[in-house]
């Protein structure tokens, strides 16, 4: 890990002013420190702005039917919160599905939302594979080993998959991401190559409206390993008489709305089948690589189980 300067900010203003093009926010540190220690980036940040030292960024409260979660709130606190487990249970389920107890007691909700992708080409040390995300011109998943960390929807220049568990229920529950500059609908925060935050923009709060009466919601995650693993496929649902949202994780570079499946409801089998409409699996390339077609089957199975739960 290269030498970095850590600035312990005492206020959001101080943190914002300290942030620039060659710096990054440090909160739980479970992702950014990994990125730095693994020498992933060709031009890594030389300054980390620690926001854990800013008072008042960790809280969970219900206010006028709105769930408000401080950006630096730990995932473990969200998973165990009686408030979250009440009306926003799918978010609690997603927080509980992250990593391991140790990671959940370090990682924060905002960090989980904007964490970097896990593509093994991107994460290859330094410039081993100069992919799009590093400023190159190629996504190595398309011609390389794409068994894992790859998308079957929405890939454009980059075909990796989103890895945030909490992003999916937040999208399904119409959450808003509050930053030092603006309010962003949860579904707009993440884009193919990362997120839309400016260099000196910090998430301060997550706001989740109270679901309509009678809303059923669930978060299901399927990973090869039951702990300390990222989703191959995850499903978050929020279904009520006024509408349905089915959001898939692990299958696209961003949380993916399965709109065809939503439209096929209440027929569960039809919705499961429709959940993979438009899927574009990556092919097998070379010995031992089987491609990611299996995600189509996994997606159908997980959507069906989520709808039957």
């Amino acid at each position, binding site marked *: 890990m290269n030498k970095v300067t850590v600035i312990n900010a005492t206020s959001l203003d101080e943190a914002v002013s300290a942030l620039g093009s060659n710096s990054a926010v440090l909160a739980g540190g479970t992702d950014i420190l990994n990125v730095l220690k693994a020498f992933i980036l060709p031009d890594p940040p030389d300054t980390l702005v620690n926001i854990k030292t800013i008072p008042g960024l960790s809280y969970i409260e219900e206010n006028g039917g709105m769930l408000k979660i401080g950006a630096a709130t730990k995932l473990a606190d969200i998973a165990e919160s009686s408030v979250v487990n009440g009306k926003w249970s799918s978010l609690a389920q997603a927080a509980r599905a992250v990593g391991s107890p140790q990671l959940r007691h370090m990682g924060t909700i905002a960090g989980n939302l904007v964490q970097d992708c896990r593509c093994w080409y991107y994460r290859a040390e330094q410039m081993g594979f100069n992919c799009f995300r590093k400023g190159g011109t190629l996504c190595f998943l398309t011609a390389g080993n794409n068994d894992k960390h790859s998308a079957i929807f929405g890939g454009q220049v980059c075909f990796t998959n989103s890895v945030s568990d909490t992003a999916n229920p937040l999208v399904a529950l119409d959450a808003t991401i509050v930053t030092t500059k603006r309010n962003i609908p949860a579904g707009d925060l993440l884009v193919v190559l990362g997120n839309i935050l400016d260099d000196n923009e910090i998430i301060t709060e997550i706001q989740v409206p109270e679901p309509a009466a009678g809303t059923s919601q669930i978060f299901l995650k399927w990973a090869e*390993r039951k702990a300390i*693993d990222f989703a191959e496929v995850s499903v978050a649902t929020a279904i009520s008489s006024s509408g349905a949202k089915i959001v898939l994780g692990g299958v696209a570079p961003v949380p993916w709305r399965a709109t065809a499946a939503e439209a096929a409801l209440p027929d569960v089998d039809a919705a499961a089948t429709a959940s993979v409409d438009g899927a574009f699996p990556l092919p097998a390339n070379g010995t031992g690589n089987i491609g990611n*077609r299996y995600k189509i089957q996994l997606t159908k199975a997980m959507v069906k189980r989520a709808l039957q739960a």
Partner: protein
Amino acid sequence: MDFLDFQRKIFTPDYHIQESTQRPMSSPTSLRAALEKAAEEIDYENKVANNGTTLPDGRLYGIGIHGHYDRHGQTGTGRGVIIQPRRDGTFLVLLGCSYYHGTPIAVCHVIAEELGVDRKAVQIGDVSNPDTSLDGGSQAGSRAVCSNSTAAIMACRQIKDWAFPWVAEELGVPVENLDVGDGAIFDKTNPSNSITWADVGNNPDPWPFAAVGQSWGENLQIPISGPMGDFPVGARAFHREGVAGAYEVAVDPETGEVEVLSMVNVCDAGRVLDRFSAEGQINSGFWVQASMKGTHWNVFHDPGTGTLLSQTMLDDKMPTSMDLDETKNNPQLIETISHVGPYGAHGIGEPAATANSVAYITAVGNAIGKIIEERPIPPRRILQLLGKA
């Protein structure tokens, strides 16, 4: 003929099966014992007809069994031990295996037992390089304990052969009356009549540079340097061990996920010296093989450049306790008494890992109705075999 019968008749034909009292025990006898124990523990013969049936929750049931000889560590695992007696009554040991693990310590215990001294009087040489050892270094593990201990026992005999005549003369008793214990050589008919190993340092005879013991694994040329049990000098010996594993699994045909319903792992330990440790060996063997080789694809390469992609423990997945329920493992030990291992024991470290994966994959194959000729078989591969990916 089902798979169990196949293994009985092909691997362990009746004409190779000995009576349990016959020594040395043959490999097929050991393997047959392990197989039968595994079959009995998992109730294989009553359950095998259920292969491929659908469980009430929609998953597919499979049961598999496999046994084989573990000969891991045999080829080229000749062992040598050099013991240098010191005039202060301690002993310096150099042995033919890597010094970075517990094997040398175990061998020191054997030497201490053989020479009747405290363990602390037996010291490992600080030549921490296996290349300096008698056979150029060898594998580490329980097999090394077995072979090196045998060599150590032979070297200890040489030391006794050198020391006892002088001690017998000093004590005024026949050599046959002598034994060792409590750091001394004593007269068995009058134990208080003794000479300590430190006093042996006064022996005016030429001081031996070292005592050398050798033993060997199958296929190795180094001859045994002294008779051992039923094995004469130059006799062919081998560290055979029958191991068997049996699994019951439920395969989710929608996700390819496999749940192990029950499993049994049987190892012929020769003689069990420490049941807790021995079962621990089996459990760790099961963990390595059933998980990493059975379920998790732990090495990924870029097909174009050969670059290793699974460079971290995220992609080289060691299963967690949530993935493998160790409480479902049923480790079983059988004892057929080895005549080349110390106290009848022989190694069980790796054997537990070997039969396991085959039994696991056989069970999965029986559940989904496919012959599986590869490993590991992660869920995505099972979906592919089922035609769903």
